[in-house]
């Protein structure tokens, strides 16, 4: 299969305030040497704890952040374009192809502009003509299940689910190839969440979108994704086909995530969720070896020396950074 995007050794470090003593800077390593390929038409799920760098990675890909180092290639039939090194004009042009849907349907819409203008804005920025703008907005609004009468109204008069539809319409109206859904359903009530998940799936089938679906909810990821990448402390620690990752996890962190999934069949005092002890590491410290070390129950002294690279496992297209990936028996779903 063809890949449409390649992320190569991408790092994004944030500079925090200067330390008082020597004017030395504190760097927060939000995304730390991440590489993967995204294949045409697939949905890649990115899962991990709060603060592990999922949104930062998404923002680097859509160019809302400049990367600290590394490259992002967008693959067109004509050839690969290095988005991290292209001129601002080229980047602007390709921004059309990669769109993002944000988590918070309340915060991500401007309360002072009406829905028509909200959805049309990306078209205006990209220099579309008036007739085409009108036509595209009319089409997309129907696709996401809103009505023409809604266009003149303002965000505050919509429910959370409707606002999320507006956010989706806005991201899709320019006709992107790749859509990054950053916790696109996390803020919604379960009944509305189901509507939006089904809508995203339907739109993908119709328009052949490629999705990156960011979430910390494994059940949602399981419903919508083909492949899963597991992030921990700024790094991808495991990546593979959804079924393989869930059934045969190859990294202790993935095992912990799977064990912690809330299930309707769990019962107080009977069947319990497992929890991972401890806290994620401080991203401003200089860490060596495996980042999960303090919390891992399979650790041994070699783990302090490992290099945090993704390594092949016995399953094809399934990689893990755990040096014991082929020794320890991990429990999946």
């Amino acid at each position: 299969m063809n890949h449409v995007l390649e992320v190569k050794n991408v790092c994004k470090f944030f500079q925090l305030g200067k330390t008082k003593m020597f004017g030395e800077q504190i760097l927060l390593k939000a995304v730390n040497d991440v590489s993967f390929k995204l294949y045409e038409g697939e949905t890649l799920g990115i899962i991990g704890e709060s603060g592990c760098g999922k949104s930062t990675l998404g923002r680097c890909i859509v160019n809302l952040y400049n990367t600290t180092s590394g490259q992002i290639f967008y693959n067109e039939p004509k050839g690969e374009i290095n988005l991290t090194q292209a001129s601002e004009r080229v980047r602007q042009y390709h921004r059309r192809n990669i769109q993002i849907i944000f988590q918070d349907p309340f915060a991500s819409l401007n309360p002072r502009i009406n829905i028509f203008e909200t959805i049309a804005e990306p078209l205006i920025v990209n220099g579309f003509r008036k007739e085409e703008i009108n036509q595209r907005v009319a089409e997309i609004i129907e696709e996401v299940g809103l009505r023409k009468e809604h266009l003149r109204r303002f965000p505050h008069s919509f429910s959370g689910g409707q606002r999320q539809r507006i956010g989706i319409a806005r991201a899709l109206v320019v006709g992107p190839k790749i859509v990054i859904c950053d916790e696109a359903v996390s803020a919604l009530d379960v009944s509305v969440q189901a509507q939006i998940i089904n809508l995203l799936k339907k739109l993908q089938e119709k328009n052949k979108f490629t999705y990156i679906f960011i979430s910390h909810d494994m059940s949602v990821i399981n419903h919508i994704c083909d492949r899963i990448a597991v992030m921990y402390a700024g790094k991808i620690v495991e990546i593979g086909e959804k079924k393989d990752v869930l059934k045969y996890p190859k990294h202790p962190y993935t095992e912990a995530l799977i064990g912690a999934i809330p299930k309707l069949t769990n019962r107080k005092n009977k069947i319990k969720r497992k929890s991972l002890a401890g806290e994620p590491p401080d991203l401003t410290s200089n860490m060596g070896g495996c980042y999960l070390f303090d919390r891992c129950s399979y650790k041994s002294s070699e783990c302090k020396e490992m290099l945090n690279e993704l390594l092949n496992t016995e399953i094809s297209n399934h990689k893990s950074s755990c040096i014991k990936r082929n020794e320890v028996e991990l429990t999946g779903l």
Partner: protein
Amino acid sequence: MKNKLDLLEIIDLEVNFHLDEGLVKALKGVSFSLGTNETLGVIGESGSGKSVTAQSILGILPQPPSIIRKGEILYDTGKERLNLLELDEESYRKIKWKDISIIFQEPMSSFSPLHSIGDQISEALITHYQGMDIKEVLDKCYETLSKVGIPQPKKFFERYPHEFSGGMRQRAMIAMAIICNPRILIADEPTTALDVTIEAQILELLDQLRNELNMSMIYITHDLTVVSDIADRIVVMYLGTIVETGSVEEVIDHPVHPYTKALLRSIPRIEHSEEELQPISGSIPSPFEVFPGCPFYSRCEERIEGLCNIENPVAKSLNKDHSYVCHLK
């Protein structure tokens, strides 16, 4: 459903909000009870009245714009049954944190950024036990902080809320809530802002504390899977009314009300990823809308026209453990 052992009993509670845009009937006659040492899960979608119920119990409803129209909240102190709604501020203060205490959804907004965690945690203790000297206060604080799983309580005590991760802040919030050994702990979506691994830790901690300290707990959430994990009994709310209540086994394994059934179908389940999700049709009506009959009528798949949209359904009991409010048999 009256029970001699009930610690807390809410009877026919009605709360209205008088807003510029109109009248919101936030609670339309809510009744339930909490037994000794039990965990009651209150579940419902956004706007169903979960937080208003919690705020009513604690006497922290903003009045105005709200008005308690009707009802009783009976609390059994061990000596007498008090109607909390009749207490003045002074008497409420004696109960708050010591008898009944709360953990809020967003730990960041419930701590003041200006004071250290320690100052804020010790405040309730100082209010309630005026005879305690500083050393006793500090010892109790350190003890409570380590009870909630904070590794270096002395260091933690001096620091400020923004210096911590969401999980650590939520632990601090729990410490503040349990420091006076309350008999009832209300947890209003305490893990909604956290991710699954931390959520599992916090749920485990809460249940363990409830056992150790002999507390009863009201656990509010919109997540049925979380409730099935921690509760003994469930109350399902929709638009300011209770539609179904019963033991976890009854409500989750044998739901009766069409709303509970629809809610269960709409959850993405890890075990069934291939099935298409079934959303509840339509959306929650605006809180300003007034209509007769069952609140769930407009979205119900089993509605009977001419009955459900005209008459208010009444509560029916399936067994001692399970009741629902619906016209259907």
